[in-house]
């Protein structure tokens, strides 16, 4: 099985847990690696924005002496976006439904990001 297929399987597994509407694996420099996103979303722009969000948060936290953030969570009335590191090379980003249980989602994301890290390093 190709690396890309294995990464796509991780995203499919995430979606099957429910409440996760879309997800993507993105390189730390903001380029798309794999995505499970509806065709009407610009996945490449989503990837760049997610990496930028996490990168900017890292800079802000580091400048304030608070260390590297574990994740960035953006909430709106229509849903949530969670971006988290998945090893040295990648990020995992998910988009959830508005009523998603954040604790449960973070647990799933944690497991998935470790699988991504095992594959990409």
């Amino acid at each position, binding site marked *: 099985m190709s690396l890309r297929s294995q990464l796509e399987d991780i995203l499919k597994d995430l979606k099957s847990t429910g409440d996760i509407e879309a997800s993507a694996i*993105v*390189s*730390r*420099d*903001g*380029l798309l690696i794999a995505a499970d996103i509806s065709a009407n979303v610009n996945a*490449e*722009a989503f*990837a*760049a924005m997610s*990496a*930028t969000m*996490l*990168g*900017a948060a*890292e*800079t802000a936290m580091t400048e304030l002496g608070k260390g590297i953030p574990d994740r960035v969570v953006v909430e709106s009335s229509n849903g949530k976006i969670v971006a988290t590191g998945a090893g040295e090379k990648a990020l995992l980003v998910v988009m959830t439904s508005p009523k998603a249980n954040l604790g449960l989602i973070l647990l799933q994301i944690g497991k998935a990001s470790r699988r991504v890290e095992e594959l990409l390093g």
Partner: protein
Amino acid sequence: MFEILVNEDLTDMSEGELDKIFVAHEEGIKRFLGRIPLGCIYATFLAGLYVEMEKIVGRAAKGLIVNASKNRGKVAGMAIRKRYEKKYGKMDEDRVKMVARNMLTVWGKCFGWGKMNFKINDSEFILEVEDSLESTGFIKLKVKREQPACWMLLGYTWGLLEGLFNSKFVGDEVECRASGGSICRFVFRTE
């Protein structure tokens, strides 16, 4: 000018010859294609801009520049293809490749983005740049890069090819002078 761009192979033309065709000088303003104002930027400013962006958003700076450049390259490629098709009918693959080479030659020789060479076969479009503006900027700044750093040229070329060919490509800069290579080499393949 458009007719020359899409009908003649420009790759062997000199800077002076290309300037005469594509760059007009009017009342102190340079204009590309007779209408778009052109300005120069020094290489170290461009490289310095990337370094400053990295200070704000970290490694994600690359994704921002590559994606934004890709989108604009795609707009240019699509506009050329549509204008050609309106006038002459469908653009065949050989012409698409020639127009892509021509556009990049104009970038290289008229806009100063480096001396560009092309290696094109059925599956790959390879662009080699001997002295890319972006890599030169990093070298002059004495900033050694861990990874290839010609983000704008990567994105623009990638988008231009997608727009001209009307299909998805995968692309990367596989060698860069800024990270110790002897040349900047970009490889694009259809997805």
